[in-house]
């Protein structure tokens, strides 16, 4: 029985007086229903607890139980293709128990303890095992092999006893080790890890490989690296979620962790339905087999929304330690920041900008810094890439969450309302966006696609920048008065915008485009432009316009598949032929 009793209740914030029982960030059970909470401040008078479920019906003097543990995640096989809430409770188990609605005080184990895995033990008696080292493996899903690693909290030691390979559930002991102090430690297939603590690695490695997404505006113009960070800011309706979905579907990470943080319930359902139908082009298995969903929708308790981000990144670190490349989609980090603000308000803390607490920037940087390309404790390479959506209030990018996020990410894909209004998707504005990974990835692109790839990209950017300048003039005096060279720039830029940057997520040949095809598309457009400039004295712009060559160039994206690389040589020849004919 606990001595600590509730003194005050204000929304998700509960206070306990006259106790020295609790420690900071400790997980506690609050009230008779034992709902989960976390200690967030302690002083000599009172201990403040944030509660992860609704406090409706909670009474003064109900007990608060200490667990002597920080808020943790149980890690082990059975996480991939699962759907969890913000504190890693499996939603499908909750549905079985509580039907359609989420009930208060459902303390359900994260992992399915009954499921049997076919386990291979990878150590033998007498081996010395260190933290982070793998001692058993099993097939978690068709696409992912789970590796059970010695928890970094343990000291390591000599393997004393191993169970034979065979079928085990997650809680059965399979290996026994003896540490330096002659303590016997029994290992099963899972471990616990506090979600707010970064898991250790051997060292951070240099970022050098791109995360290939198959989205032209990202891969070609504003690439993201494996182990990098990116933000997608945009007002409502600009396609943040659609962009995140496209990345989750097509990027070449091994595992996707999708955090639906304070967003719509139907979006989670959509991911569930869509991803179970879609096939991963690399493993040929359904996408759900490599995806974990953390769903804390906007109407679920606000404190769990705050925790969901940390839960997600802890899962990512755990799988990274096995040597996988992970991509995290956090949709949306603004909702998380708002959860911080809401709790801070209930604590009556002094607000900084726009009511957000003054620790907002440090919390954001702690989160984004958990990304990286690393060598794991067991000596393998793994990475975590974080892609966070930001929902600026009033679509104003100068608000605190967007501005602070900008400081800690190196890729900024600014979504633009006017592009979205014209249904130009992905609505990433090419003038406001940037990627700082160009330099890191130069070597990869040069080796893989040839040195001309980056040169072509520069030319494309230059044309787009030129177009932006010219459009200012056109707005004032109209297009007709421009010289032919400039008309050509504007029309070529239109081809780039519509035929290259805009991408149809629902078209079979356009939803995912390989780097090779991206390069070929650029090549054709630029070849046309160079030919046209060369011959600009011999032809008139009207001739070009009437020949429909621009709309033909735009339609190339629908006429070629990822495999038709040769077809692009024909396009190049056709362009040559076209200019030969027209100048005759």
């Amino acid at each position, binding site marked *: 029985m606990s001595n600590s009793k509730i003194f005050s209740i204000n929304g998700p914030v509960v206070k306990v007086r006259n106790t020295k029982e609790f420690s900071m960030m400790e997980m506690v059970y609050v009230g008779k229903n034992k709902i989960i909470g976390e200690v967030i401040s302690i002083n000599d008078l009172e201990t403040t607890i944030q509660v992860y479920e609704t406090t409706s019906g909670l009474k003064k003097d109900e007990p608060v139980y200490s667990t002597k543990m920080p808020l943790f995640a149980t890690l082990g096989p059975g996480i991939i293709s699962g759907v969890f809430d913000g504190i890693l409770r499996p939603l499908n188990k909750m549905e079985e128990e509580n039907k359609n609605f989420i009930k208060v005080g459902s303390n359900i184990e994260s992992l399915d303890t009954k499921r049997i895995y076919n386990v291979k033990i990878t150590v033998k008696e007498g081996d010395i095992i260190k933290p982070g080292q793998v001692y058993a493996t099993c097939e978690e899903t068709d696409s992912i092999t789970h590796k059970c690693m010695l928890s970094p909290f343990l000291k390591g030691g000599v393997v004393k006893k191993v169970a034979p390979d065979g079928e085990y559930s997650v809680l059965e002991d399979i290996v026994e080790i003896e540490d330096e102090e002659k303590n016997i430690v029994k290992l099963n297939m899972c471990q616990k890890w506090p979600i707010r603590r970064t898991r250790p690695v051997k060292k951070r490695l240099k970022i050098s490989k791109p995360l290939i997404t198959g989205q032209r505006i990202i891969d070609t113009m504003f690439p993201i690296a494996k182990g990098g960070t990116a933000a997608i800011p945009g007002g409502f309706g600009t396609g943040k979620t659609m962009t995140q979905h496209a990345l989750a579907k097509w990027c070449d990470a091994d595992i996707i962790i999708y955090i639906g943080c304070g967003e719509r319930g139907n979006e989670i359902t959509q991911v569930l339905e869509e991803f179970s139908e879609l096939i991963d082009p690399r493993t040929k298995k359904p996408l759900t087999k490599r995806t974990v969903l953390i769903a804390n929708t906007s*109407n679920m308790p606000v404190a769990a929304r705050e925790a969901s981000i940390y839960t997600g990144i802890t899962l990512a670190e755990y799988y990274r330690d096995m040597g996988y490349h992970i991509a995290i989609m956090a949709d949306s980090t603004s909702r998380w920041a708002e959860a911080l603000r809401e709790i801070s308000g209930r604590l009556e803390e002094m607000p900084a900008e726009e009511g957000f607490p003054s620790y907002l920037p440090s919390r954001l940087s702690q989160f984004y810094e958990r990304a990286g390309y690393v060598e794991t404790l067991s000596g393998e390479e793994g990475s975590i890439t974080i892609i966070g959506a930001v929902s600026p209030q009033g679509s104003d990018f100068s608000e605190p969450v967007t501005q602070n996020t900008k400081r800690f990410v190196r890729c900024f894909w600014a979504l633009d309302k006017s592009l979205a209004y014209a249904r130009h998707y992905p609505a990433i504005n090419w003038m406001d966006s940037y990627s700082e990974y160009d330099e890191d990835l130069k070597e990869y692109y040069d080796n893989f696609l040839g040195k001309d790839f980056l040169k072509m990209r520069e030319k494309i950017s230059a044309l787009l920048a030129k177009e932006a300048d010219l459009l200012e003039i056109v707005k004032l005096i109209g297009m007709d008065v421009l010289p032919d060279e400039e008309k050509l720039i504007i029309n070529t830029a239109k081809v780039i915008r519509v035929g290259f940057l805009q991408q149809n997520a629902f078209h079979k040949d356009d939803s995912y485009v390989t780097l090779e095809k991206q390069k070929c598309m650029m090549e054709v457009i630029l070849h046309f432009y160079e030919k046209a400039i060369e011959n600009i004295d011999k032809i008139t712009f009207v001739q070009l316009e009437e020949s429909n060559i621009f709309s033909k160039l735009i339609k190339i994206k629908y006429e070629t598949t990822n495999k038709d690389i040769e077809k692009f040589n024909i396009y190049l020849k056709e362009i040559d032929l076209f200019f030969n004919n027209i100048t005759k």
Partner: protein
Amino acid sequence: MAIIRHIGLQAVNGPLIALSNVKDAAFDEVVEIEVENEENRQGRIVHIAGDKVIIEVFEGTSNLSLKNTKIHFTGKPLMAPLSTEMIGRVFNGSCKPIDGLKEIFAEKYVDINGSAINPIARSYPRNFIETGISSIDSLSTLIRGQKLPIFSEAGLPHNKLAVQIVNQAKIADTVDGAKDNFCVVFAAMGIKNDVADYFKAKFEESGVLKRVVMFLNLSNDPIIERILTPRFALTTAEYLAFEKNMHVLVILTDMTAYAEAVREISSSKGEIPGRKGFPGYLYSDLAQIYERAGVLKSSSGSLTQIPILTMPNGDITNPVPDLTGYITEGQIVLSKELNKKGIYPPVSVLPSLSRLMKDGIGEGYTRHDHKDLANQLFACYAKVEEVRSLASVIGEEELSAIDKRYMEFGRAFEQIFLTQKLNESRSIKQTLDLGWSLLTILPKEELDRIDPSLLDEFYDKSKSKINA
């Protein structure tokens, strides 16, 4: 009956009262407040600190004094009485009948705060609702189980549009085709008396009144009750949709008045204000209302929400439309400019959006050309805006030939496609064909959003029809 626990108060401030020496009170519990010579009022515990509690009084605190008031604790959160008898009845914001008939006989009582729907239990909404309004059906398609708000302003015909949607919506075309499983839950928060009467009269005229549950909290009713109104309405709607398998359309008007009530109570509680004085938890609060829409796997019913909100001074970045837009699945924005031109419904198509549309249209739902056609119409109309701003500088005469065609397209789009009579219902086929006939104003090469095969199928056909 609850025991009298307390006589007298410690403080009264706006809609809030404070008591001390309270034991055994639960957070969110409902209390009955007895005032001499008056009907009992109800309140809810919003803060507990030691033996002090703060209570929100739903009916307002006028006439309460520190001495004359007795408080009964009920030990329960606020419950809504539920029954299918509620259909056709009118209630106030606290779910008391105000149509002169007697109290309903409740089949069950449910906590009005509801619980979050488990995302696993949801089924993704895909069934298209034909509203008969071209701009909505083709460009911002309403889907069964969606929450699609109307962003409006004072002086715009949002009420007419809502009535037209209710009257024309083919929501109940289920397998049996019966109208019996369709009903409307109408929640009015802080709207004017005559607006409430307008809705009542229009529903009566079209014969849907029998199928409407009304919750009225008018602009002169107590503020706190306004916080409860949508919760009673949605608890009722959830019961009808998910337990009685009905297709429920919920109209919530006006959400701006609701949010202002939240702000008023927050400031009288002395909370730290966020943007424009609204409390920091407005997003979570609105989400608890809007997220109560959808379709469940375990039930054949659906709950579709059309919240209406008036943007103060037409500002879409105001916290209420802004936060709403982040929660709801799209929005229908009405435009003052179109309204001035005499176009009804004045739907501003570019900022309007339906997020669920992409999965509920096309082959098997509407028609296979719908997606491309809608995209093309958007793109062309966006171009019209560009051309218009150019024309306003250099004059229409100076525009290039193709830009002139765009001007013509823009006019036709507004006059022929958007404009509809109050009782005019167009089928989705008519709407799409109309869209194609508009596109024929432009040369085929300009239509870069449409798959070439569709273009061949529809553009030429449409063109020849017009020429004939």
